[in-house]
């Protein structure tokens, strides 16, 4: 049906349209300004009773690790009358950005990377630490660690757990069978690789880069370990800051060294397939062929130990992680024997409000009490860089050795380079490692990651 309009009406309807446009424009102005003034929130009762309060914590750890975290604070929370609600999210790194944008914030978030933390601090939504928590952080953590949570001279978060990266996992029994010993230099490690290849006729190494949105980080870690070991801490720091470029020969040589194992079809990917299957293997899944004996060597942080709890050896038992057990690990050797530089990781708790209960929880998380309670959780896979940690309480031999490394004043400790870089670069770094495994040339990958650095 057609509507026939007379002149008068159409004149009137044009008027209506004009008004409508005007109204829409007005409302948009209103909306825009409302957004910019934004914020507010429910505010906080900074003082007062915390009994019966609920504190929400949002973090990247799920599954067993989440259970261990919950166990570490449950007794304290019960005693204080505070309910702590922990939500774990495997895609934390991606989702926290959206949450901050949308102002749908938890009370406390556990950031797995200092780079991400400092980006969050720059949004202005992270609250500065209260004085008691700040005092704890200053007392319990080394200046290296304090540096990761400081922005503009102010403390914004407390370090929680820590991990030491760059452990080479192997089977002591198989080493004995092949008549080989733990290498002390990187060249010896390559020699060992070729020996195992000759003895077994199978690829010795296995690796997994798959980790959802964060796929590629295990590769970034391994590259960082080689940069720190070969080029030294000063180049490493400059690299993290962006003054040493990704296209620098020092970074290129680390890529080449890593490629000697990971890009060699003779040496990877034991138990999974060819070189490219590294990208489709989940990072924790390397525990399966390692336990069953199909894979001889893999490079992963201390937290890989947690993955062994759910896999079986060839004999059908749960592998025992010990120097004389089924699985053990040695720190990846440097160019010369006796290196003391390690790359590590860790989580940081930052608060998004100043509620009394939130601050109370932050104070607890920054204390030596919590760190000791964390390692006391049965079969815990966590350690901490907290100086108040009683290393003798650690039941697990591997974690005890890692704590020793963390607490040794001679250790040069550096955070994983990818984690310490700005989030945009980190994302490009991870993608670059995946592309590299897929066969993209080293120089193209270097240029591609370098291009992600924000200008200026």
């Amino acid at each position, binding site marked *: 049906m057609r509507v026939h309009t007379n002149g008068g009406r159409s004149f009137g309807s044009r008027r209506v349209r004009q008004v409508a446009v005007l109204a829409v424009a007005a409302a948009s102005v209103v909306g825009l300004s409302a957004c910019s003034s934004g914020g507010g929130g429910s505010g906080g009762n900074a003082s007062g009773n915390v009994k019966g309060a609920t504190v929400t914590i949002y973090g990247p750890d799920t599954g067993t690790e989440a259970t261990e975290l919950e166990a570490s604070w449950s007794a304290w929370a019960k005693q204080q009358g505070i309910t702590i609600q922990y939500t774990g999210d495997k895609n934390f790194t991606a*989702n926290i950005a959206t949450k901050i944008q949308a102002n749908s914030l938890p009370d406390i978030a556990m950031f797995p990377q200092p780079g991400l933390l400092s980006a969050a601090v720059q949004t202005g939504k992270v609250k500065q630490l209260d004085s008691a928590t700040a005092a704890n952080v200053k007392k319990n953590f080394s200046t290296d660690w304090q540096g990761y949570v400081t922005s503009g001279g102010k403390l914004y978060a407390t370090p929680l757990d820590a991990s030491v990266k760059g452990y080479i996992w192997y089977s002591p029994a198989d080493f004995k069978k092949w008549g080989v010993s733990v290498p002390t230099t990187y060249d010896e490690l390559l020699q060992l690789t070729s020996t195992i290849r000759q003895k077994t006729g199978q690829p010795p190494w296995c690796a997994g880069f798959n980790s959802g949105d964060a796929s590629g980080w295990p590769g970034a870690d391994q590259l960082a370990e080689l940069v720190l070991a070969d080029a030294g801490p000063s180049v490493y720091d400059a690299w993290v800051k962006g003054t040493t470029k990704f296209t620098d020969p020092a970074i290129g040589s680390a890529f080449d060294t890593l490629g000697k194992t990971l890009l060699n079809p003779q040496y990877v990917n034991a138990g999974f397939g060819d070189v490219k*299957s590294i990208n489709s293997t989940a990072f924790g899944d390397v525990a399966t062929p390692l336990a069953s004996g199909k894979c001889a060597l893999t490079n992963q942080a201390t937290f890989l130990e947690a993955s062994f709890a759910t896999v079986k050896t060839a004999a059908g038992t749960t592998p025992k992680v010990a120097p004389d057990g089924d699985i053990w690990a040695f720190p990846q050797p440097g160019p010369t024997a006796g290196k003391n530089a390690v790359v590590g990781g860790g989580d940081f708790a930052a608060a998004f409000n100043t509620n009394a209960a939130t601050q109370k929880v932050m104070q607890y998380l920054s204390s030596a009490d919590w760190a000791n309670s964390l390692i006391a959780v049965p079969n815990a896979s966590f350690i901490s860089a907290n100086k108040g940690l009683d290393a003798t309480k650690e039941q697990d031999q591997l974690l005890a050795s890692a704590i020793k490394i963390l607490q040794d004043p001679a250790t040069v400790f550096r955070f994983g380079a990818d984690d310490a870089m700005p*989030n945009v670069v980190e994302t490009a770094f991870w993608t670059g490692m995946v592309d590299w495994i897929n066969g993209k040339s080293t120089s193209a990958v270097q240029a591609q990651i370098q291009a992600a650095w924000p200008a200026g």
Partner: protein
Amino acid sequence: MSAFFSWLAGLPPLAQIPIVIVAFGIVMVLVVFFIEVAPRPGRGYSIMRLCVAIGVPLVVLLILGIQAGAFWVLIIAAVLGGGLFWLDFRARSGSGYLLQLFAFLSPALLLLIIGLVYPAVQTFVNAFRSNDGTHFVGLDNFVWVFSGGSTGLIAFINTIVWVIIAPVCATGIGLLYAVFVDRSRGEKVLKVFIFMPVAISLVGASIIFKFFFDYTQDPQIGLLNQVVEWFGGTPVAWLQNYPLNMVMLIIILIWTQTGFAMVLLSSAIKGVPTEQVEAAELDGTNAWQRFWNVTVPGIRPTIIVVWITISIVSLKVYDIIAATTGGQNDSTVLGYEMVKQFEILPPQAGHSAALALLIFILVTPFIWYNARNLKRQREE
């Protein structure tokens, strides 16, 4: 507004009930006032309308909590209100008519503005602003999208390929299937098989296909690679090699959309008059000629609708990429990259908005064509 709600939330529950009822009552009285009282003729009512026309924008501005510059708030309110009053006063249908119209429209208008107009305008503005939203950068974000090596360019090219391949294949396969099973024995059962994937969400379908395409070989859990091995081939990394991975992901979309195409086209085919087909048969045409010259022209509008709908689905695809490759190995598309850019901290809001605007620009011709198609159909 938020201050009012916070204050309300702080009160005991029993006190909240009467306050909410009173607040609701006030709003209702205002609406009735607009519709019923304000349009009455007379000088007194005209003055009242002037107060209302200026007062409402003022109150709205204040409620939305704009503290910055009371002076500007007054100016805006006076200009808007004055303009509204003047237009209302000169309205053909008598003064008071426009105010009444606005009172009726306001609830729907408000929701549309909050949910549709404001985000669209904001996105449009952001597309020309820096990633942190502080200053205008002109076309820099679009330069980023179209500069070599950026993920934006890859996403753009991939999206174009998606929009070309997916709708054609899904519509084509759906049409052929509809024709072949039409009036055959077991038509219903055969249709259900093809239609079932429509009931599966894109994420669910993607996860099914992710296992189907899996590249882990020891043990072999990828069905497709197992088939390749049975035929003596070496396993293929389906999702890791560009452009093979894109083709594989497009297959997922085709799989889920073919059923939709088939059902619509099948009912359209049943609507083609039998006389026409029989007449063509008497004229000595073969099956192909009947299909191409009688059936297809008869269902042309439906084919266009189906094709456009699937095109729009493939333009805004996000779930398939997110659930399978995560955009890696150049498999990203505009919809996914838009979200991805926003998920970096600090969010690359400029890049994200530029990608969103590109999707909008690409969708527009389809919507325009669809609207024209509908209009022509109505005129016929």
